[in-house]
């Protein structure tokens, strides 16, 4: 089973990388970009096909390692 975990910065947390990318897009002449926040995507292959077990494993993975809960949120998708 394929899964995707997306980790993003919480609202209000300063994101200097996102800001730099935002500035670069502006200097490239890309129109209509109001703001950019940078995050991370993890594509994970889950063994077995138990969806509940997969979700539990992905939640544990996100909370224990993939996201720093002080400044980041995560979302889980089973694909």
């Amino acid at each position, binding site marked *: 089973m394929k899964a995707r975990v997306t980790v993003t910065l919480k609202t209000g*947390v*300063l994101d*200097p*990388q996102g800001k*730099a990318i935002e500035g670069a897009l502006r200097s490239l002449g890309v129109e209509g970009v109001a703001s950019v926040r940078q995050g991370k995507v993890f594509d994970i292959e889950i063994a077995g096909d138990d969806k509940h077990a997969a979700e539990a494993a992905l939640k544990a993975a996100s909370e*224990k*390692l*993939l996201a*720093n809960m*002080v*400044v980041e949120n995560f979302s889980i998708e089973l694909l």
Partner: protein
Amino acid sequence: MKAAIILFPGSNREGDAARALRQAGASVSIVWHAEHELPNGTDLVVLPGGFSYGDYLRCGAIAGRAHAMDAVRAHAARGGLVLGICNGFQILCESGLLPGVLMRNRDLRFICKRQHLRVERNDTAFTRAYAPHQAIEVAIAHGEGNYEAHEETIRQLEGEGRVAFRYCDANGLVGDAANPNGSTNHIAGIYSENLNVLGMMPHPENFIDPLVGGIDGRGLFESLFHKAA
């Protein structure tokens, strides 16, 4: 005093930390991160600077979950001393031994320079050799040293006197002009609740020999030695 320096893949300041500790009179052992236990009688654990695991995922994230960190947590819970410098501070935050997180520097640049710090209090095991509010000159070398935490956590740290060092100028003046990385409240280092765990971004171990331009870092290691002697 017996000090154990935890070595992770990508640590690179363990030699300097060992030199500073030995100069202050400590006996030092280097402990590989996969060990489950610290050497018997360890008084102080040091997490050295460097780039553990190449800063993959987040600085200190993978090292913070190493086997040796369980032993470090147990040591800290017993009241044992722990010092995390630079990447070591990031590891302490990631391991949950200290609150908050070290974010990218405000200006996105890796900063490597001399930096003054104000010693916020001199009644802890780490700072007793300094004068109160003394401005010491050490070095910083980091890309992610911008300390952030929940407002509530910052209030708690400030209220409980757990800010160890703040960035300042040569006269000890704290403010935006002397803050190299955008750190909240100009925080350069913090203590745990019981003041036995210290995490700091700057490198006191760089400044222990007049040959390299200063000895202001010695006080920290001498403080530790006198405490545990």
